[in-house]
């Protein structure tokens, strides 16, 4: 396979965007066909490049000008995250009708996100990730300027922090290429910066941020593509951070802290989900919930935790497409979607979360307590899910962009693909562990039939298949129960949301006390600075002269 093939997953959607734009400017909307071609070309090229050899393919060209060479690479990590990004985006672009401007921006967003996961170095990842964030802001604004958007400041701060990490690695270690950075260069403070940028890039916070808010937009066309392209990037950084540290984070405390952040995000999302007033509001918390559980698993530092986290992310990316296509009226589709979201056995979400929790116990020390917390968060999700089944649908979005059968198919697939958990781990997640945790990836056994943990074996095929068959039989044979759609009280009110609102209101209302305003009048300070007074100029000159004599 020629190394130039690495360019294809980035170049093809870019070319598609150009063609669509040219035709669009000429007044001719190529519609969903071109959008689908662009999207699925990424999936096809990733599969075509990765499956035959299943080993790293790299293309390095000349320097770009900021200390980084043009270095693109497709390895296990790129394949996994590339599929998580491209599949839901391609599906949404295929099904949902869009104006050509939105298609072009979606293609550019997909291009930037693919470039971010293909970039061979930290700086290139920062530039491509920053580009994806910029395009997402423009895409959301193009669709509806008044609807909720992510905080651009947080996204920019995240990618700037990663940029700084890249240049520190270049200055300190001579290179920022993932596979070449000396392990000693990745010190604690630098890793803290990587973790901060990852948390900012995906907004993995306990309070409600854009991964939940975007689902409340009147239309979910741009929201689906935005979450599909942006949300996995923060996790990508945390996975690559293992490669930078040769399979470990610089200190176990980082593992614990990130796992706690993940649990806090998952539990907070669960608390908000169980207090949701509508089903749409509940479904808005699904992706942050999955993200929290995935972060907890990935942050454990064990190969098992990593693969569990990756499978959870893959499930979340499938649910992104499912939720974006889900109509708001009651029916089987939302029921299956909620069942898939809360991880009803023997679904893949159930298996992956169970393995993630098992990984915490086997990671040692106090991490088991995080496993208990994860189980508690999961229980809260169960309550939220059961409650949400009977909630009113909530504010609908245009019927033209909803496809109940497709979303029901996706939800059903996640529910019946529990038995395929070991195969997915073998084909999708284990190569990532082998890439970033070479020393401990060997512990991942079990082949296509079971998932081996330290102290136990989860026989996903021989246990989940009969369970699945029995489940189908049971539901087929049971009668129907009337689900009463009613406004259901929350089990408990979540204090953090209102607390942060009060804090922000306090900050906004803060003013300089009356008696000091004459001293600290910003307007007068500005007038003095702009007044071009010679006295000020000479005083500044004297100040500079005094400074250099120190």
């Amino acid at each position, binding site marked *: 396979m020629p190394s130039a093939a690495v360019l294809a997953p980035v170049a093809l959607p870019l070319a598609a965007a150009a063609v669509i734009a040219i035709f669009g400017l000429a007044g001719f909307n190529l519609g969903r066909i071109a959008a689908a071609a662009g999207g699925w070309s990424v999936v096809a090229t990733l599969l075509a490049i990765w499956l035959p050899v299943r080993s790293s393919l790299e293309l390095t060209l000349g320097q770009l000008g*900021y200390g980084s060479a043009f270095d693109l690479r497709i390895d296990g990590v790129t394949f996994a995250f590339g599929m998580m990004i491209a599949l839901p985006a391609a599906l949404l672009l295929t099904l949902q009708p869009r104006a050509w401007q939105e298609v072009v921006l979606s293609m550019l967003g997909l291009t930037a996100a693919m470039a971010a996961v293909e970039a061979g170095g930290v700086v290139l990842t920062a530039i491509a990730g920053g580009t994806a964030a910029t395009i997402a802001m423009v895409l959301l604004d193009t669709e509806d300027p008044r609807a909720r958007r992510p905080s651009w400041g947080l996204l920019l701060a995240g990618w700037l922090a990663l940029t700084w990490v890249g240049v520190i690695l270049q200055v300190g270690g001579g290179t920022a290429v993932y596979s070449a950075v000396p392990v000693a260069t990745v010190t604690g403070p630098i890793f803290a910066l990587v973790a901060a940028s990852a948390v900012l890039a995906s907004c993995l916070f306990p309070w409600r941020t854009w991964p939940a808010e975007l689902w409340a937009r009147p239309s979910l066309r741009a929201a689906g593509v935005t979450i599909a392209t942006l949300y996995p990037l923060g996790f990508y950084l945390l996975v690559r951070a293992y490669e930078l540290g040769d399979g470990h984070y610089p200190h176990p405390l980082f593992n614990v802290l990130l796992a706690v952040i993940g649990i806090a995000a998952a539990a907070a999302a669960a608390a908000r989900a169980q207090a949701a007033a509508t089903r749409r509001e509940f479904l808005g918390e699904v992706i942050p919930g999955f993200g929290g559980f995935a972060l907890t698993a990935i942050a454990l530092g064990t190969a098992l935790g990593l693969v569990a986290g990756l499978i959870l992310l893959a499930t979340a990316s499938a649910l992104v497409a499912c939720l974006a296509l889900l109509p708001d009226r009651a029916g089987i589709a939302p029921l299956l979607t909620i069942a898939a979201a809360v991880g009803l056995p023997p679904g893949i979400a159930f298996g992956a979360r169970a393995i993630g929790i098992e990984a915490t116990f086997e990671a040692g020390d106090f991490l088991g307590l995080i496993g208990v917390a994860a189980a508690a968060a999961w229980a809260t999700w169960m309550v939220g899910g059961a409650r949400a089944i009977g909630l009113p649908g909530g504010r609908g979005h245009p019927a033209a962009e909803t496809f109940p059968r497709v979303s029901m198919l996706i939800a059903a697939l996640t529910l019946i693909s529990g038995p395929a958990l070991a195969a997915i781990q073998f084909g999708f997640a284990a190569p990532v562990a082998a890439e970033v945790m070479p020393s401990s990836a060997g512990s991942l056994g079990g082949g296509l039939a079971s998932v081996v943990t330290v102290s136990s074996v989860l026989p996903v095929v021989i246990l989940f298949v009969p369970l699945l068959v029995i489940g189908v039989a049971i539901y087929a044979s049971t009668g129907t129960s009337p689900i009463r759609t009613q406004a259901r009280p929350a089990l408990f009110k979540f204090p953090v949301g209102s607390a942060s609102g009060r804090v922000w209101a306090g900050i906004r209302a803060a003013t300089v006390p009356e008696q000091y305003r004459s001293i600290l009048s910003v307007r007068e300070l500005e007038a003095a600075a702009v007044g071009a007074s010679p006295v000020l100029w000479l005083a500044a000159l004297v100040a500079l002269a005094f400074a250099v004599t120190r």
Partner: protein
Amino acid sequence: MPPDATEIIVFIALVLGFALAFAPAQSPRRSLLVRGGTGLAGTVAIAAVPTFDLAILVLLTLGVLHAAAGGKRAFAIRLRAPLLAVAMLALAVVLARVEGPVVLARFAAVGLVAGLAAGIGLLPYLHPFDADDAAASSPVAWIAFIGPVLAAVVVARAQGLLTADAGGAFGAMLIGLGLLNMAWGGIATWLTESTTAAWRYSFIADWGLALCGIGLTVSDGRRGALLVLLTIVLGRLPLYLVFRQAAAAKTATERPVNLVVAAMLAGSAPFAGFAARVLLLRGATQLYWPLALVLAAGMLLWLPGSLRLGRSIGAPRRRQALGVALMLAANIAAGLYPLPLLEAARL
């Protein structure tokens, strides 16, 4: 002629061409050509003359001509800052050439920094500003048209004039003023009442980054500074001209083009501003990492102000829209692959 000054002159010629080509039909092209041409000739002269004395004389001439060209503010007010710059540069040259105690060389560095700040119109030597002034006769001519070449020339000459010790003081002062201008420019762009003044402050904020880059005295700093000057001349200045048209038509909109423009002004990826920030962070990390932390935090100040400025350019139509598109494309190209520009400037 310093190679980076040559490159900046090419940028300036391009933006003059942009202004002439993409200005709306009814705008006075002839006066724009005369003033712009004079300014361009002056900047070429500043860079081309063989000695620094001649460069200062050219600056003096430009200052007087610009002041005499008229505008909302009085002749004396318009003349002060450029002449103060000339006087301080002249005194700096004298102090740099005489033999005497070491502190005189440092005072020479002070003169060069103060002269440069006064010439460009940066804190603490802000040129008085009137929102109704035409673009060519406003301080923006100094800060975005003449200033970049002046900076390149002063920095190049300073390397020959100053001793190593004075050079260190020169760099430190530039970083200090750079941080001051970054903070002031970033916050003022966001909070000041007049949008025209906000545009002017946004130039000042960008110059803060450029001064920090120049003051870092490592090659990455100079590269970052050059890219910042590129974003000033080939990004912010053309958009300011577009804004002046939109301001005249009193249209402020929130459309995708406004957000893309805001992204470019904020130095977000993939525009040249982000590449500049990468280089500046790289240079600062080589010198003193806490400075890089301060720079990184300061870079976030651009965002709120840029969103405001992005909205203020309204919805560019036909010719202007093409101009804005070309300018954005050029910025993206420079942001993704800045190497040719850096090599042309031999940085």
